[in-house]
């Protein structure tokens, strides 16, 4: 290693003039986020088995629901294509079961979080980069399930390109919300077990929705609970992309997903501030 040449180093002028400088220089938030996202995606690609396991349950539910209720739904309930009716549920299910906090909590427990925190990178990039990495996984799950649906005969009533892109966009927005919950728990607790348990919240949130039947066929307390659950509107918007685009339904879905994601991202921001203060 040769000694740093004069003039090499921080170009932002923050290092006082006349001092020998290091090679470190501000990289910028975008560069930091790109670097951390790249590392998160590399980690996902290095463990394809986790990717496959995450798809097993959504595919299982998808197939079982179609097998159990498909004929009844189509003949008795007037649902023209029950596979298409269930496909968005499987995609949202896969997006909700991703755990963006898992990689982060392993970094915290293993000391790599500290290593990254010792760099001059924007600390928020450590969280946002992980979140973007997780969205890469959500995109992967969604594409696999869309192709699977296509292979078993699901077709879009609307333009398939617009329908697919809309569904993917909604799923990503919804996925940010769920990944943020997991990341917030990881940052707040630093506990691997607690972070892995966050998937439990998606049971009430996703099953108290018109996941199996249209809302108009529901009655009593269940119908009330479903109507109060913001995820209901996400599910209905996701279906709308397959069964003919309805602007109002889709707008409500995006609004619900955005509100959910804003709320959970705010929790993540609070947990992040606490983690940074704690050291």
């Amino acid at each position: 290693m040769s000694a740093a040449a004069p003039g090499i180093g921080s170009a932002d002028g923050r290092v006082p003039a006349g001092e020998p400088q290091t090679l470190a220089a501000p990289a910028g938030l975008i560069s930091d986020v790109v670097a951390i996202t790249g590392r998160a995606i590399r980690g996902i690609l290095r463990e394809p088995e986790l990717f496959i396991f995450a798809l097993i349950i959504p595919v299982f539910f998808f197939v079982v629901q179609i097998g159990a209720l498909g004929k009844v739904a189509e003949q008795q309930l007037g649902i023209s294509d029950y596979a298409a009716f269930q496909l968005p549920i499987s995609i949202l299910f896969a997006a909700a079961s991703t755990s963006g906090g898992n990689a982060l909590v392993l970094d915290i427990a293993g000391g790599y979080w500290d290593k990254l925190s010792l760099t001059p990178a924007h600390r928020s990039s450590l969280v946002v980069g992980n979140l973007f990495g997780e969205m890469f996984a959500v995109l992967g799950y969604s594409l696999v399930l869309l192709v699977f649906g296509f292979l078993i005969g699901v077709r879009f009533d609307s333009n398939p390109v617009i329908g697919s892109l809309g569904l993917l966009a909604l799923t990503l927005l919804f996925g940010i919300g769920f990944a943020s919950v997991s990341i917030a728990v990881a940052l707040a607790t630093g506990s691997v077990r607690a972070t892995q348990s966050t998937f439990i919240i998606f049971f009430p949130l996703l099953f108290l929705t018109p996941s199996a039947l249209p809302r108009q066929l529901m009655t009593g307390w269940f119908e009330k609970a479903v109507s109060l659950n913001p995820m209901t509107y996400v599910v209905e918007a996701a279906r709308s992309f397959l069964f003919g685009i309805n602007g109002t339904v889709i707008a409500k879905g995006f609004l619900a997903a955005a509100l959910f994601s804003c709320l959970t991202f705010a929790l993540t921001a609070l947990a992040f501030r606490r983690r940074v203060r704690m050291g």
Partner: protein
Amino acid sequence: MSAIQAADLVRRFGEVEAVRGVSLEVAEGEIYGFLGPNGAGKSTIVRILTTLLQPTSGSGHVLGHDVTREPTTVRRLIGVALQEAGLDPKQTGRELLTLQGKLYGLKGKVLGDQVVEVTELVGLTDAIDRRIQTFSGGMKRRLDLASALLHRPRVLFLDEPTTGLDPLSRALIWDRIRELRERFGATIFLTTQYLEEADELADRVAIIDHGRIVRQGTPAALKAEIGADVIDLAVEERETGAAREAITELQASGELPQGELRGTRDGYTLFVPDGPQNIAVLIRGLDRAGVRFGAVSVSRPTLDDVFLAATGGRMAAAHEDGQDGDGQREPEPAGSGRRAS
């Protein structure tokens, strides 16, 4: 300007006061050894000075920059290898170094050259494209050291860099630390549990115990503070009472000068001036009293002795737990581990 300065640092964790008013100053280009047993507060002070932890009170500066008010500037100036080498096992060594470099704002050819350079420096060229999960503990430490050097920091914090390493890996890390100072004039803040390591590497040493610095100075000056030679005496357990009585009598009669007598695992250690002269007096006196004894040796004091005097022997207890290094004494009778009395 000092490379590192701490003024009255205090850090509490709830009821526990881990750091209790630590002040220190490290000159540029100095290797500063920070010595203490587990739980003494070493790592907490490193975390404060490296911006990972805020002090409850007091201040810390690196090259004149406040560690709490200007953390980003401080992070650009320092390199840190923490006690637990936190590395992402799924990445290769090269990927980890490249990511680290990007976060320090390095790019293009400079980044590529630095990765090659630090990899060569720590002797990991052949393994750098392997996943880190396949690295041994020593290799991980060296990779961690390489990542701390990527941006040519002016101040390097090494938190117990050799704890748990085999002698070969430890020697390699020591060589690299010396090289860093000699070639680049880097300031190095080195925490260690190993007295031998501090003695070998540090220009100055601070001994920390229960969150306070209890001694500070060059290793030679600290040893000189003891002001005596060290006589180690091995006696069988049933003879320890008789041996103590005989030595006390020799001191009372003035045949042996007054000096501290400390129990050890194998017998006693006696601190007296003019050791070579007085070892003969001791042997004759023990013979006369009919005390059966084993090996007897005289040596100059080591940092181990300084440490024992300063802390009341907590490090010695750690030695016996196998958590710690070894105070060096030449010659040393076999199995003469010290025990605080």
